[in-house]
């Protein structure tokens, strides 16, 4: 009686095995990898905002401090998106006929809010708090990047849990003096390896890694 399978069948079987198992693992692994690429984390994506607000101009040319608009960053969990009335503090005087600011004036006079697109989004089960980070010497730039060079705001940090934990486990390299929190293109006065631990002591930095620090 001849063999049911020819020797070639062994090879086919091995290939099929690799394709099935490897494909399954590859699919899962690929999806996990994808979630960590800038496509998955949505880094560097440029969003169409209702108004062409240019941070470059406001930060660099006008030298406006971040906290003039993001007022609650030192007091609350949210940094705060400025109210239309705050825009009008200046724009009732300057560029008050610019067509680029039509929507700002429309919002101010109709009382309808400006619908901004959210760029930095954390999942609903993450409770991030700006005030504690800013008060312990984490600069805006550390997470939000060189906002002074962005024509439109984009997310530069991956905002993954791994990224959060990297800093929470060792915050010293990222600390800067409180006075310099909103500074862009910040350069430490002395070696960060010395300054970092010094500031950590000064500001009593105890970054926590318990789950409920962020998840409640």
């Amino acid at each position, binding site marked *: 009686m001849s063999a049911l399978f020819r020797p070639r069948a062994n090879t086919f079987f091995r290939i099929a095995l690799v394709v099935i198992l490897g494909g399954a693992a590859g699919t899962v692994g690929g999806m996990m990898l994808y979630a960590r690429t800038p496509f998955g984390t949505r880094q560097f994506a440029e969003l169409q905002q209702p108004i062409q607000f240019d941070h470059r101009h406001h930060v660099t040319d006008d030298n406006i401090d971040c906290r003039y608009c993001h007022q*609650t960053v030192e007091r609350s969990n949210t940094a705060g998106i400025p109210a*239309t009335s705050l825009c009008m503090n200046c724009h009732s005087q300057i560029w008050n006929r610019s067509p680029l600011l039509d929507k700002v004036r429309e919002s101010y006079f109709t009382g309808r809010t400006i619908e901004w697109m959210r760029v930095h989004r954390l999942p609903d089960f993450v409770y991030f708090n700006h005030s504690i980070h800013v008060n312990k010497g984490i600069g805006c730039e550390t997470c939000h990047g060189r906002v002074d060079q962005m024509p439109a705001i984009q997310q530069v940090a991956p905002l993954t849990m791994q990224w959060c934990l990297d800093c929470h486990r060792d915050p010293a390299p990222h600390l800067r003096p409180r006075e310099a929190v909103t500074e862009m293109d910040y350069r430490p006065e002395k070696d960060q390896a010395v300054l970092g631990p010094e500031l950590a002591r000064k500001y009593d930095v105890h970054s926590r890694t*318990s789950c*409920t620090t962020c998840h409640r």
Partner: protein
Amino acid sequence: MGLPIYGQAARPPGDDRGQRPLWRSLEELAAGRDEGRSPEFAPGADSPPDALSRRSFLQLLGATLAFAGLEACAPPREKIYPFVRQPAGLVPGQAVHYATAASLSGYGVGLLVRSNEGRPTKVEGNPDHPASLGGVGPFQQALLLDLYDPSRARGFQKRGRQLSYRGTLLELSQLAKGHEADGGARLRFLLEPSSSPLQAELRRRILERFPKARFTAWDPLSDDAARDGGRIAFGAPLEARPQLARADVILALDDDFLGFGPEQLRLMREYAARRVQGQELNRLYVAEPGLSVTGMNADHHLRMRSAEVVGFARAVAARLASKHGLASLAPLAEGARATPAASAVADDLARARGRSAVLCGPRQPAAVHALAHALNGALGNAGSTVRYLKPVLNDLSTGPAGLAALAAEVKAGKVDTLVVTAANPVYSAPADLDLEALLEHVPNALYLTLHDDETAEACSWVLAASHPYEQWGDTRGPDGTVSLVQPLIAPLFESMGEVDLLSAFLDQADLGARRQLQELWRQRRGGAGFDHDFERWLAAGLVPGTASPAEAPAPRTAAVAQALRDLPPAGAGGLEVGFVPDYKACDGRFAANAWLQELPHPVSKMTWDNAAYLSPATAEKLQLVNGDLVEIQLAGRAVTAPVWIQPGHADDALTLPLGYGRRAGGPVAKGAGFDAGRLRRSDAPWFAAGAALRKLGKRHPFAVTQTHDSMEGRPLALDFGAAEWQRGKGELEEHRGDPASIMPAMHAYEQEQYRWGMAVDLSRCTGCSACVVACQSENNIPVVGKDQVERRREMHWLRIDRYYQGAAADPQVALQPVACQHCETAPCEYVCPVNATVHSDEGLNEMVYNRCVGTRYCSNNCPYKVRRFNFLDYRGEMAPTEKMLMNPEVTVRTRGVMEKCTYCVQRIERARIEARVAGHPIREQDLKSACQQACPAEAIVFGNLNDPQARVTRLHHDERRYDLLHELGTKPRTAYLARLRNPNPDLA
């Protein structure tokens, strides 16, 4: 008996504590411990949800996996909506507390309501308000759910025609004008009782315009008898306000002062403060027909039918007159039959002259109140433990008498316009008045209502009422203190307040309630700086210096004696039927509130139902078991009700809680329980004898949490008599301290800055259940419905276990709030395959929802059975207003996720960030758990065990401290303090 429990020492011979078996249900007691033990799992506990079988679930799971990748391609982008003009002082992300007040039966309680970005999300007590002292009851908290109820009444209707707000005011103005000609002779108002000075002012002005109009107040839970008792005893309608801080002996005559009433929160605080060692314990006697919250806490629960209470009180008076020389009481004692209990109580009261208090509940007739006044007077308590205050309500009579007079006028066709703001009078009025039929004779019956209820169906005009948290106004506490009521949010639906409606009859509705309120108080307390004062009163929640001064009246014994003689005789045989306000539905006004519907009844642990409560002996005589449907007949009327056997209930009596059996009022209210009010008559609103009972042979299923999560045969809720405490306190040593272990210490928590812990003082806990509602509100806990509770799937993170001990007829009750114990060596953590429950460095047993895959191993391994699993998507699609209720600091859990008490970790983290930004450690006053903050008795204390000065640390080192299931070695962070009882040795 079962096997001895590991780690638990045998009790020495002669120790009788072991002879008092703990039992959970009457079936269990009757059958003996082993046979009658309720099954571990409820029928249906393992059955799949109705909609989806396991097979189709797996199919869907496969499809979900297959398509999950596709969905990840394009999750929606969120939008940000900033303010156009940011309100001054508002910091997005920071909650603000506003002081306001809520009224029930016309009496205000000061509150602080938390507002997140303009949404009220949590109700706390106002520590500065004398009727709250920082505590808050279930009703005030659950009002918040009503605010967001999507089935609330909305808009204005006149005979089915929709009206705009303007149109309504116009129509009302014309209606009012029509009544001007005859001076309002055919204009009547039926109002919710109120103590509001603003309402009083509006009424005065309405009477100026319509001199012949009349106002009637209706409260199905009226306390008229108390004022009438004052009239008899003092010649003035004074109300007795006890001061329990100084009372050593308390006799409550059918008075549920710990469970219900305008002064519940204050009295609970004062009572509980006298239940801990280190001072003289107070002693509480409760004479009542049922088993109330107050009865559960009594040192001696003296069960008797409602009509027998007066005889008991007279027997006490007789003993005081004959044995203790209080001759002034002699005329009150005529015909009293001495009982050992009455004599012992009298002896005890006499020993504590000037330091005792006799309290009488609103269910008892006026003559009994007068008798209590006489007793307090003779014992020297007046002015010491009992103060007498002038009534604060705008109407001295809020009971059936006024309503009956109004009904007679309507029947005679003398009323053209009836303005109703009372809560659902068609449902709550005594059955003999038949208000529903009468309202058809009123051409213009205006009804201002929060819900489309029975009365709305009978009235020709239905006007949606603004919620109490949406209105301006004022109210007075039971002691007279005025609170300004400020809205937390603009009305969510088109609606108007009572002030607007009354103002419409003055053509002044345009003014708005805030302006009216301000003008009134400017007149009363005007002068320079008024605007500043007004803002200060709003911020503080009360107007200083408005409390009533105490009166010093002398009781007139002869009048009291005459009133007692005039009391109708105890009357016909048969069963006595008694009506009580329900702890959840109240008089029906909260029947549409799902939080309260699902709150386990403090005594019977029943949810979504009421029942006819009767004693075990009566049930045996009538051959009834729990859930049997019976027809109760009383004076020609009948209702069908399921029975529930209540240990400690008086024999030959039925207790029927009001507020259920609603025929309208929204999907939650309808269909739950039976309407006991159908048996109520205006001449006997609280109890009546001569009822007959017929068994129908059908049964009613109850959703009761009583036999859940059984922890049987173990020393759980420990208590000691005051006398045996010194001898027996050594026993507690075996229930605390470090258990022997071969495992190395897991973590040096002593080195951490914070070590969170809780202490629950069982001596203080009264079982009122305010903490359960507080937890539900703070932590976004869903309501699951009767069907799911029957399958034991209720979601409350905090439950209050209630155990009976001793004889079924007259048991002692032990209460124990149980939430996650945050064990240092937590059994749940070892078994989680995905590390979804882990331990924090500060000792919290953390639950990480986004890791949980729902194996439920943790719940299986939890000896305290405090973990709750989302078997179904209990939230479902939430209405937009329901989403506004959610606490933004707590994740809204989805289906398939385990959850449990977190020690309010969101409050810890919030306090931590605020303290660290300010540069100081978290201080004790910075942080309270939700249950602790709500507890009127201060039974729950939370804090940092590494702070030697903290209250929680001192309680953890208290000699009454013990750990629940200590022998398991779980090292719980929640400590219990054993309860002390103070029985009278003469009654032993």
